[in-house]
Every structure is written in C-alpha cells, then in structure tokens.
C-alpha cells in the first residue's frame, strides 16, 4: 500500500530529463520505415479480412486443403502484421528518444501525445483485426512524419502511395 502510494506520488512529481544515450549519434533519422510499417499493418489487416475458408459443397475433397491454406495464410499475415507493428514501435521510439528534442516537443505540444497514441494503436492492431485502428495508426504516423519534416525545415506534403493500400504517404517538397 505504502509502495503504491509512493509510486503514485513519484509519477505525479515534476522531474527533469536525464539522458541514457544510446548508439553513436549518426544524425540519420527518417520516418519512412514507420510509414512503411503502418501501410503494411493496414494491408495485412485488409488481407486477413478477405481470407476465404470454404470451398463450394461440390468440392468436398479439396475443402480440407482450402482450410489448411487459409490457416497457413492467416499465420503468415499475422506474423507480418506483428513484425511491422514492432517495426513501427521501434522506429517511433528512436524518433522520440534520439531525434526529437525538448524544443521540438515545445514547438509541437501535441507531438508526445500523437506518438503515445500511435504506439497504443500499434499494439491494438497487433491484438485485433481492426481496420479502423489500422487506419488511425497510419494517420498518426503520417502526422508524426509531417512534424519530423517540419523540424528539418522541410515542407511536408501528402501524396498517394504506390502501395495496394491506396492510402497516402508523407514526403517533402
């Protein structure tokens, strides 16, 4: 009980940031992989929703094989969805911890919340087959990408992606 209360107090107290810096600061950061991950999660969610499990009754002999193929496809698509969800979280973590600085968070006060929302949505899209969450995740990643380019003094713009998702990607002029 005392531990819970003290934990709560510590969580609410104001604090300064101390850095436990990782890696060599190479200065090479890009939101591209997070966007790629979000498109892939969206595509896998679409494809999982389109899997057909049954053959017509006249093809009973191959019905079992169809079922096995469907299970196989579900396993593969789920695996890819998991991997790319993880990629998004890694990439956003790198941007949040290594690239974005206090001045960026001050300049874009919504940034921290957008990143937190994106990470939560990434977890949700891994746990479910939910197109609305996948769409929302992509939107958050696009918003983060736009802020990223703005911090580089570049003008971001949304263009239609060449991917089967037929959604947008953020590039810069």
């Amino acid at each position, binding site marked *: 009980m005392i531990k819970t209360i003290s*934990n709560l107090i*510590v*969580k609410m*107290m*104001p*604090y*300064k*940031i*101390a*850095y*436990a*810096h*990782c*890696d*060599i*600061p190479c200065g090479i950061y890009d939101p591209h992989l997070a966007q790629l991950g979000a498109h892939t999660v969206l595509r896998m969610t679409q494809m999982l929703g389109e899997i057909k499990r049954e053959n017509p009754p006249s093809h009973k002999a191959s019905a079992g094989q169809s079922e096995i193929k469907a299970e196989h496809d579900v396993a593969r698509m789920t695996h890819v969805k998991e991997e790319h969800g993880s990629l998004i979280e890694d990439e956003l*973590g790198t941007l949040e*911890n*290594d690239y974005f600085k206090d001045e960026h968070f001050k300049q874009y006060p919504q940034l921290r919340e957008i990143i937190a929302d994106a990470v939560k949505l990434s977890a949700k899209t891994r746990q479910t087959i939910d197109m609305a969450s996948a769409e929302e995740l992509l939107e958050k990643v696009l918003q983060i990408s736009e802020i990223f380019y703005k911090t580089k003094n570049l003008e971001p713009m949304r263009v239609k992606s060449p991917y089967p998702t037929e959604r947008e990607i953020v590039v810069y002029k």
Partner: protein
Amino acid sequence: MLFSLLGIKGHSMEPTIKNGQKVIISSIPYLFYKPKQNDIIAFRKNANILIKRINKIENDKYFVLGDNEDDSLDSRKFGLIDRKEIVGKIILNFKF
C-alpha cells in the same frame, strides 16, 4: 542539487535503469567521499544531464560506461569526464 527527480530517456543503462524510469539523484554522498567505481552518476554534458556508471578513475577523471555496453554513447566516444561535471549519484531507482 541536493536531491532531484530525473526521468530517464534512452536505453544505454538497461537492464539496470530502463527508458522512462525515474531515479532520484543527490550530491550529498559526494560531500563525504569521492565518486567511486561502479557508482551510477548523473553528469552534465553539452547542456544535458546524462547518467552512466563509473567504470574506472584516472587522476580524478572518470571513465563512464552504460550498462548496455553494446548500445551506449559514453566515455568510449566522448572521453573522460571531470569531477566538476558530476552533479550527483543515483541513490534511488524507481522500477516502474
């Protein structure tokens, strides 16, 4: 800095201190003795506060490393740090 609550950003001190964890640092211990090997310290570097572990001491200068040595920016890159750069010792690590 008698006592200060710090939120940790980065993974270089894992598994001892994880990204997002909070720690309390204090300068009081170093009023009584010098920083010693294996102390986890907070120090100033380029206007930021960093935390690392003291790996060795050479002529009152400190070679610091992250516990996550494969993924840490530390004395191997920026060299030894001075006593005057050290702002305190981690005295409490909240593991949540």
